[in-house]
């Protein structure tokens, strides 16, 4: 009897001891971290061979749809496995799993993917359709690193200022309706703000016009003073915010119910609300021009995984997605400007490229595509705030 009583306690101690050893072993595994930075075009594929029969993609919702992925499968014999991601962070996380061949990365993910050694350079000579991609999308800081191309441009757009015209009059031409505390107070509790650290860049874009003394040149490259000014602006905005939206469905219901009347949005929500018959207008979508400060935006890039299991199929896909006809289809489906120049002749709505300013480089000069904030702003001093600082600041803004 006494023996039996002693047993459970001894077993418990053994389990604890085992766990401690297990943890120590794990902690001891440190040091062997091989983070790879930079790369050279030598690493890129030199020749596209026969397809491997399938390709696994990580993409934004609406980028890989049966309308153009089925014909791709028939043409190349590469079966498409698609995984949709909701945020750039999620995309980086999925790519770390090593299960995917490629990703449609926005500019706030590309530098991280390259720095983490998760993606390989792309040999653009093997992508025939690349030749006719808009020149102002080639060799940009978010798709080309140290002079090496890391991807194929997919399409671009500006983040929108959306409002309900029955509550917000006259139609705003400035972000001051959400950013200037005095103006925004009119819509207290009814402002809808994107729930993401990247929103700090919206404040920075606003400050570029309204506080020129801060000297902000790139809203993603902020030194401490500039960053604090942007964060303070967002903190002032916070009491006026009705809802921070993380997922499109939340914002759609917010505008449809009338709880939100003005805020930042994407094409997707704007079109969904229009489709439901909710009165909404958006700049630049329905207005044709940007708010006067400019806007944040995105320019997405198809990248190939460093250890892609199906590299040939991935190259076929990167060429396919900027095929004039296909790129036109994607752009119209999603509501963004195509990356392919020749796509403008293939759109169903013949006015599409004009409406989305696809062929007007001067329009895009005031669209600040998402980038990963890095400590190194290119001035040789590591004095900028990095993405972790942005994430922490975002937590304290919301409180």
């Amino acid at each position, binding site marked *: 009897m006494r023996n039996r009583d002693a047993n459970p306690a001894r077993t418990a101690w053994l*389990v604890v001891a*085992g*766990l401690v050893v*297990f*943890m120590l072993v*794990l*902690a001891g*595994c*440190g*040091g*062997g*971290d091989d*983070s790879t*930075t930079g790369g050279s075009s030598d690493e890129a594929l030199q020749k596209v061979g026969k397809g491997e029969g399938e390709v696994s993609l990580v993409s934004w919702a609406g980028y890989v749809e049966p309308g153009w992925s089925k014909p791709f499968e028939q043409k190349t014999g590469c079966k498409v496995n698609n995984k949709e991601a909701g*945020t750039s*962070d*999620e995309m*980086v*996380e999925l790519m770390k799993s090593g299960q995917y061949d490629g990703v449609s990365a926005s500019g706030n993910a590309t*530098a*991280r993917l390259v*720095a*983490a*050694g998760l993606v390989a350079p792309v040999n653009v000579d093997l992508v025939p359709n690349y030749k006719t991609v808009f020149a102002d999308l080639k060799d940009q800081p978010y798709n080309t690193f140290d002079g090496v191309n890391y991807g194929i441009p997919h399409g671009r757009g500006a983040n929108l200022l959306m409002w309900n015209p029955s509550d917000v009059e006259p139609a705003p031409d400035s972000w001051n309706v959400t950013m200037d505390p005095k103006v925004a107070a009119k819509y207290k*509790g009814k402002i809808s703000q994107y*729930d993401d*650290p990247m929103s700090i860049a919206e404040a920075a874009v606003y400050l570029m016009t309204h506080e020129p003394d801060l000297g902000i040149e790139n809203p993603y490259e902020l030194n401490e003073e500039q960053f604090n000014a942007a964060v303070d602006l967002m903190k002032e905005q*916070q009491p006026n*915010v*009705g*809802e*921070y939206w*993380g997922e499109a*469905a*939340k914002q759609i*219901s917010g505008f449809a*119910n*009338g*709880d939100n009347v003005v805020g930042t949005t994407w094409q997707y929500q704007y079109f969904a609300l229009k489709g439901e018959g909710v009165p909404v207008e958006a700049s630049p979508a329905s207005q044709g021009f940007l708010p006067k400060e400019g806007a944040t935006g995105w320019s997405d890039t198809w990248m190939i995984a460093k250890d892609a299991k199906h590299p040939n199929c991935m190259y076929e896909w990167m060429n396919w997605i900027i095929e004039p006809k296909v790129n036109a289809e994607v752009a119209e489906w999603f509501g963004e400007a195509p990356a392919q120049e020749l796509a403008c002749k293939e759109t169903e709505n013949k006015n599409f490229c004009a409406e989305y300013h696809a062929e007007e480089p001067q329009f895009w000069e005031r669209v600040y595509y998402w980038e990963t904030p*890095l*400590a190194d702003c290119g001035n040789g001093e590591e004095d900028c705030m*990095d*993405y*972790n600082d942005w*994430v*922490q600041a*975002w*937590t*304290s803004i*919301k*409180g």
Partner: protein
Amino acid sequence: MASEAVVERRSVGHRLADLFHGRPRLQVGALLAGPVGWLVIGYLGSLALLLVAAFWSVDPLSGLTEKNFTLENFETLVNEPVYRDIVWRTVRTALLVTITDAVIAFPIAFYMAKLASRRGKALLVIAILLPLWSSYLVKVYAWRTLLSANGAINWALDPIGLSGPGYGTTAVWLVMSYLWLPYMILPIYAGLERIPNSLISASEDLGASPFTTFRRVILPLSFPAVVAGSIFTFSLTLGDYITPRLVSNDQFIGNVIFSNVANNQPFAAALATVPIVVMIAYLLVARRLGAFEHV
């Protein structure tokens, strides 16, 4: 042929039976090897991994984990007031939801256990379990619609000159109390069922008023069940991050973990230790209160 095969099979079975015969420890060992292995490796192992990761750091550029020991994550957690606010808000809501659910659940459970007819009891059990069959997200979005400025709550309250709470901290408390109520009712119901009716009669026979009977007999006997139910409501509230995200702008511990998990896993892991510590403390108190003695 066939009979030979049977003989063969039986003999294997026999040999196994012989092996286990008279060896209780081997019997228990074989029975528990799978579940315990799962518990230790799959469950505790992943927890251990999480705790270890909390002491690592992250390369700001690539977001990759750097496996060198540091206390930096915990320092940030303690020194930044915003995290204290978030932890306190989460724990406070969990406590409020627990108290609310206990107060609502007790009369319902009492009616089910002691007063309702068999039919009424069955109907009530179904009514309580029914919401658990629909998706969590559907329920939260339904509350979003109810709480909207132009929603049903305001519509109903408007004629008497009142308005609903709208989105915010109160909304989180309301929705969580709704979501986790069944997890409080069922343990209390089970606990009350176990109290013999004769005890209540005896108390009455001895001249106790209904209130005294409740206070001196029913409550002490059913209290462990209330504490058991509170473990569910408390821990479910503590870990939720979707409800706060959908019906308020409040950040809970889970929200901050969520926003850090992709880019700064070590910090997310450090944050995740907070609910673990809170829950351990809560369970210790619950054990003191006798929650594990009967349930």
